[in-house]
Structures are given as C-alpha cells and as structure tokens.
C-alpha cells in the first residue's frame, strides 16, 4: 500500500468533513422539529391531521433521497414561477437544496421513531401519573417524555448514522463534501480503491463518535437498568 498517497488523499478529503457535519447538523436539527410536529399530527386522532402526516411520511419514506435531491435541485429550477419567487435566492444554492431534501427526508423517518417512542409508554404509567394528580404538562415532562426518549434513542441513533451517510448524495448537486472530494481525487488519479477506502474510513470514524455519544446518553437515561452503585457505608460494612 502506498502510504504517502493515502496520506495525501486524506488531506485532500478532510476539508469536506465540516461540510458533511454542517449538512447533517442543520438538517437533523430542523428535521427533529418537523418530526415532532408530524408525530403530534399522527397521534392527534383527527383525520384532517392524521391523513396529511401519513401521506407525507409515505411519500418521503417511499422515494429515494437521490430522486428527492434531483427533483428539488434540478426539477424546481425548471419552473419560471419558482425562479421568480422569493424562495429563489434560497433554492438557487445547491447547499440549501441539499439541506431541504435531507430535512424533509429525516423529518419523515424521525417522526415514525418519535411516534413509536410515545406509543411505547405503558398506559399504567400514565394512569398512575393521573392518579397522583399531575397536570398534562407535568405528566408529559416527568413521565411520558423521559420514557419515550429512552425508547426512541436506539432508533434515532440509527437515523443519525443514516443521515451522515446520506449527505454523500449532496455530491451529485455540486457540493464538495467528503464523497464529492473523494470522487474528484479518484477521477484525477484513477485510484478508486485507495481513495474511497480513505473516504470510508472517515465516515466510519464520524459514525463511531456518534454511536459512542448516543451510548453515553442511553447509559445516563437508564440508571434503573444498572446495578446500584456501592455506597461508602456499604463499603465500610464490607470492610468490617
């Protein structure tokens, strides 16, 4: 293996990491609000809210992100109505088109994860909260939300990892993030194996960091699943 080439490739691709992270962070952040709104609509029980939310999730989960990115970037731009609209300064930029597509996409997936988390809260817990005289808000904050988040976390960490990987599709609309830069280096040097090997390693380390962070969060949220920590008193007793 040509270590010098791998190193120079790494240096050429690394400038794409901030772009990848920014694309992910912004779309995951906005997408989470979209997901919460969609999940609330789904659980509202009102057909006028449930049906649009279901249709939305159906469309965005059922079509490839690649197709969505093409439709938003090249498709919308072909209508002069769009080009003359107030949205054009925003849709003109490949960057925001990618953010839009990624956000709409993660919104659909995450809303299902949120809905699953909320629905997994056992009714007995809610009943007990009511019996204790909690208001709806207090009940949501103290009982429903913590339980739902704990249930949803593993699924949501999957979604975060998928999002990091999905940003690679932004390279098809002229955004030079990790994959875009890798593609450029590869097509100039014809050394596809080495270059995409390096790109893969970068994605792997990003996702490694994310899974570790989520694991730490999960650990913190589920103290009841761990053995009780030894108290100083107990230690002293043992010593006797």
């Amino acid at each position, binding site marked *: 293996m040509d270590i010098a080439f791998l190193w120079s490739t790494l240096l050429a691709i690394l400038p794409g990491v901030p772009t990848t992270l920014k694309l992910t962070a912004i779309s995951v952040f906005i997408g989470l609000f979209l997901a919460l709104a969609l999940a609330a609509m789904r659980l509202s029980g009102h057909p006028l809210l449930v049906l649009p939310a279901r249709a939305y999730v159906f469309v965005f989960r059922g079509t490839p992100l690649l197709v969505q990115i093409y439709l938003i970037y090249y498709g919308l731009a*072909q209508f002069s109505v769009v080009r003359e609209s107030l949205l054009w300064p925003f849709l003109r930029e490949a960057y925001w088109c990618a953010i839009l597509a990624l956000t709409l996409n993660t919104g659909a997936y995450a809303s299902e994860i949120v809905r699953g988390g909320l629905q997994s809260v056992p009714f007995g817990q809610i009943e007990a909260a009511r019996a204790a005289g909690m208001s709806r808000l207090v009940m949501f904050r103290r009982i429903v939300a913590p339980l739902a988040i704990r249930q949803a976390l593993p699924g949501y960490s999957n979604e975060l990892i998928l999002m990091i990987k999905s940003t690679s599709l932004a390279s098809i609309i002229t955004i030079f993030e990790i994959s875009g830069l890798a593609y450029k280096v590869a097509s100039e040097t014809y050394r596809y194996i080495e270059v995409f090997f390096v790109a893969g390693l970068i994605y792997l380390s990003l996702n490694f960091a994310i899974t570790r962070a989520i694991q730490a969060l999960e650990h913190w949220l589920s103290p009841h699943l761990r053995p009780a920590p030894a108290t100083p008193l107990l230690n002293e007793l043992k010593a006797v």
Partner: protein
Amino acid sequence: MNMLKPLTLAALGLVATYTVAFTQGKTWTKVTIATEGAYAPWNFTEAGGKLAGFEIDLGNELCKRMKVECNIIAQDWDGIIPALQAGKYDAIMAGMNITEKRLETINFSRVYGTGGQVFGVARGGPLAALPGLGARLNLTTSEADALKAMEEMKKLLKGKTVGVQVSTINSQFLDKYFKDAVTIKEYKTTEEHDLDLANGRLDAIFVSILALNATIEKPDFKNLQVAGPSFGGGLLGSGVGVGLRKADPELKAMFDKAIGDMIADGSLKALAVKWFKLDISPQS
C-alpha cells in the same frame, strides 16, 4: 492484512486479462467499445434507452472496416478509463480529447474529430459581449495571443460563476487560466451544467463548441449562446481519438488504418456533417 486481499485479487484479475489478450495472438474478432451516452451529439441515449450519435455511427462503421464484431456499451464518464484498464471493454469513444495527462495512462488512435472549447452564456446577457467571438486560439502555437485574449475576457468574467464538467480538459483549463477571476463549479455531466446555466444558477459554462451547439438546438436551451473565442491545443489537446489500452498496439493500428481510410474517402466528413452540421474531421 485481510484488507490487502481484494487489492491482490484485483491485480491478479488485471494480469489475467492482459495475459488472455496476449495469448489470443492479437487477432481481434470482437471489440467492445464504451461510450458515455450523455454527450450529444457525440453520443447520447435515446428515449428508449438506445445509444445513438456521431460516435455510435462511427464506431459501427470502423468495426465494419476492421472486420470485427462490434458491441457498443454505455459507461459513466468517471470510471471510463479505469474500467478500460480493468478489461471491461477494449476501446473508448466518448468525445475524449487526447491529452498529455491521459497519454500517461492509456493510448489513443489518431484523431477523428477536432472542435474548439468555448464559453457558453445566456443569450443577450451581460456576458454575451465577451470579446473575440469567432476567433480560434491555439494554446500550443500562439499561447501569447490566447493569454492576451483571456485578460480581455477576465474584465467581464470577474466574480462570475462558471460551470464545467469535473476532471475534464475543460476543468483543467479553467483551473489553470481563470481560477483567479471566476468561481468554478464542477458538475458530473455537461447536461447538468447546461440546466444550471439555463435556469440562472450559473453565469457561464466552459464546454466543447460542438456539444454546446447541439444543446442550443434543443427548445429548452435556445436562450444560450457561444461567447468569446474558441480555444484548442495545449492542455486542451489536439482532438478526439479512440482511447485504448497501451497493451493493445495491434488494435490501435487497426483503428488508425480504419480512421485514415474514412478520412481519405470522405465518409468521416459526411458523418461529421450529418451530426454536427459542420466538418470536424481532421484535414489529413
């Protein structure tokens, strides 16, 4: 160590391919040609998925003259040279210009088409007035004149966004001569930068004049035009040829002869006029 295995296998595969090619005794009965299928009128994909264009007609005619069976397939531009070397096909006819850089990796037949490279802009837009329209500047024989013309053009191009296909002679040209004046945006296909020029995301594109002329003929792109002089020579290369493996000199000889015959009897010119509406065949 495991990681090395696929590499080793790939290397063995390459060796095997070459060995087979050699032991076949250099008599070719079947030639597979790769084209891009997205570079009209050189080569493009019809609505039904069928390949068509100047190079499809030319490839079939060359095969007939070389007395070999011909199979033309579509291959993405980005992997087109590595896949040739990996033995997935034997020749490339994809509007590929012969350049010093490519000659380091592969071989080429003699030139079968020469067109210049130009800027494409919105018709009647601010860049339509780029000086030097109609002039042909050669970077090999008269680089000083070309550089002077570029300085004039930069006055208008300053700060504009120019689209170009990634890892082509055109992107190398912009990188070398216009990087200080314009923002370069790289696309995977020329069709994508055509779209972005037409919808106003780009101020200009740098592209082959023949490809641009073909684009302008489509109704959706009639608001585009050529601006400024056309460039050729130097890193832009001497023209378009058939890309071949260095290990296949006998195939190169066959292509060279067939192309030479078609130039001599005027059939290459006829084919060029049919697809480009002008004679792009080399003069000798």
